C-alpha cells in the first residue's frame, strides 16, 4: 500500500460521527474515501462554507474548495463570509483539522508554510486552523525525499503554530502529544519500534503496549 494511502486510512479512523472537519490541501483530501461506513461528518471549507462534497456533474458558479478547485455541496450546506468562516475555525467549532506538514517536533509544534529561500507561499488559513481547531492531526510522510526525518526535537523551519499538534500520522507510526509528552501510539504493520526510532529525531515515550495501525478496508 502506498504511504499516502496508509496515512489517509489511519487518519480516517479519527473522524467520528457528527464531527466538523477541515481538511488541508493534498494528502488530507484523500481521507474521506476511507471513512467507516455509517460515519457522517461535515466538511468545512475555509473560503466560506460547511457541507463540502465531491463534485458531481458540471462545476457550479462560485462553488470551489479552499484550493480554488470546483467542488460540490451536500444537502444542508451553508455558505458564509470569511469572518464567519474563521470564527468557526478559531472559535473551537471545528472538531478536527487534518493538515500536511514539513516538520513536527516533540513539543507539538508544526512547520508547514514556508522554506526560507526556497518557497514562501504564505500561511493562508493554516495558522488559524492549527491555533483554533479542537484537535490538530498532522498527516505526512515520515521522512523527506532525501530521507531526512520530518519529526524532530525542534522544528528548524518557521513555525505555523507552537505546541498545538495533537496527533501525527505517518506511514510508519502514529504519535500523540498530550500534556507535553510525545508518545508512540502505534506502528504500521511490519514496522518495529527500532525502525521508528531510527527515522525519528524527536524523543518519544514508548508505552508497554504499542498498538498496530489497523488499515483494514473500511
Amino acid at each position: 500500500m502506498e504511504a499516502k494511502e496508509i496515512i489517509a486510512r489511519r487518519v480516517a479512523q479519527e473522524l467520528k460521527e457528527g464531527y466538523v472537519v477541515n481538511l488541508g490541501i493534498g494528502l488530507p483530501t484523500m481521507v474521506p474515501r476511507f471513512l467507516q461506513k455509517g460515519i457522517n461528518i461535515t466538511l468545512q471549507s475555509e473560503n466560506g462554507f460547511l457541507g463540502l462534497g465531491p463534485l458531481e456533474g458540471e462545476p457550479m458558479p462560485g462553488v470551489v474548495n479552499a484550493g480554488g478547485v470546483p467542488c460540490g455541496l451536500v444537502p444542508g450546506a451553508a455558505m458564509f463570509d470569511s469572518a464567519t468562516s474563521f470564527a468557526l475555525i478559531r472559535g473551537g467549532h471545528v472538531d478536527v483539522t487534518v493538515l500536511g506538514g514539513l516538520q513536527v517536533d516533540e513539543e507539538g509544534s508544526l512547520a508547514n508554510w514556508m522554506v526560507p529561500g526556497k518557497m514562501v507561499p504564505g500561511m493562508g488559513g493554516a495558522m488559524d486552523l492549527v491555533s483554533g481547531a479542537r484537535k490538530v492531526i498532522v498527516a505526512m510522510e515520515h521522512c523527506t525525499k532525501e530521507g531526512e526525518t520530518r519529526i524532530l526535537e525542534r522544528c528548524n523551519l518557521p513555525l505555523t503554530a507552537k505546541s498545538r499538534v495533537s496527533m501525527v500520522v505517518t506511514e510508519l507510526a502514529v504519535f500523540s502529544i498530550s500534556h507535553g509528552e510525545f508518545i508512540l501510539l502505534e506502528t504500521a504493520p511490519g514496522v518495529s519500534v527500532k525502525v521508528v526510532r531510527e527515522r525519528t529525531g524527536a524523543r518519544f515515550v514508548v508505552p508497554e503496549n504499542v498498538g498496530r495501525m489497523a488499515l483494514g478496508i473500511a
Partner: protein
Amino acid sequence: MNKIVQWPEIGPMFRDGMTVMFGGFMGVGTPLGIVAALRESRVGQLTLIGNDTAMPDAGVGPLVASGQVSRVIVSHIGTNPTTGKKMIAGELDVDLVPQGTLIERIRCGGSGLGGVLTPTGVGTVVEEGKTKMAVGGKEYLLELPLRADIAIIKAKRADRAGNLVYERAARNFNPVIAFAADLVIVEVDELVEVGEIDPDMVMTPAALVDKIVLSQGA
C-alpha cells in the same frame, strides 16, 4: 441618489498610490471588470489588500503582472509565481497575514474597533514586533485595523439602492471589505428594482455601497 455608473466612469475614480481592498478567493468573487478598469487606468504604486494574488491571469493577478502594485497585504501568494518573483526582485512588498487575522483586521477597520486579540501566530514569526497580551492565562497578539481608499466588490445581484446578494463561496471577503473603505464600488451580474430582494436575504445593506456597475457580458 443614483449609484448606477457606466464603465467609462470607473477609471477616473482611481489614482496613484491608492489602497484597494478586493473581494475574492483565488479569483472567485473578484470583480474582474473593475480589475480590468484598474489596469486600463494605468494608475500605479497601488497597495492591494485581500486574501491572495490568485494566478497571473486570474483575480488581481493581472495588476501584479502589470507592475501597478507596489505592496500587497494578503494571506497567500503561492499560486501566483509572478508575485513571488517580484517580491524576490524587490519590486513588490509582500505582507503575509494569516487569513483569519487578515479578515478580522479588516472587520475592525470597518467596525470602529481599535484592534483584535487573536491566538493565531503566537510563537511564530507573525508575533514579531506586535504587542502580546495574556487574557485568562492565554496569550494573544494585538492585531491592528486595516482600511482602504476603495473596496472593489463582486456581487451576484444588487437592487438599484445597492442591497447585495453574493453567490456561494464567491462571498468570502466581499461583505467584510464593504465596511472598511471610503469608496465602495460593486460589480454585479444582475441589477433588479428596489424591493425585489427580500430584506432577509440581503447580505450587504445598501447603505454601505457607493457605486454599482453592471458586469460586461452579464
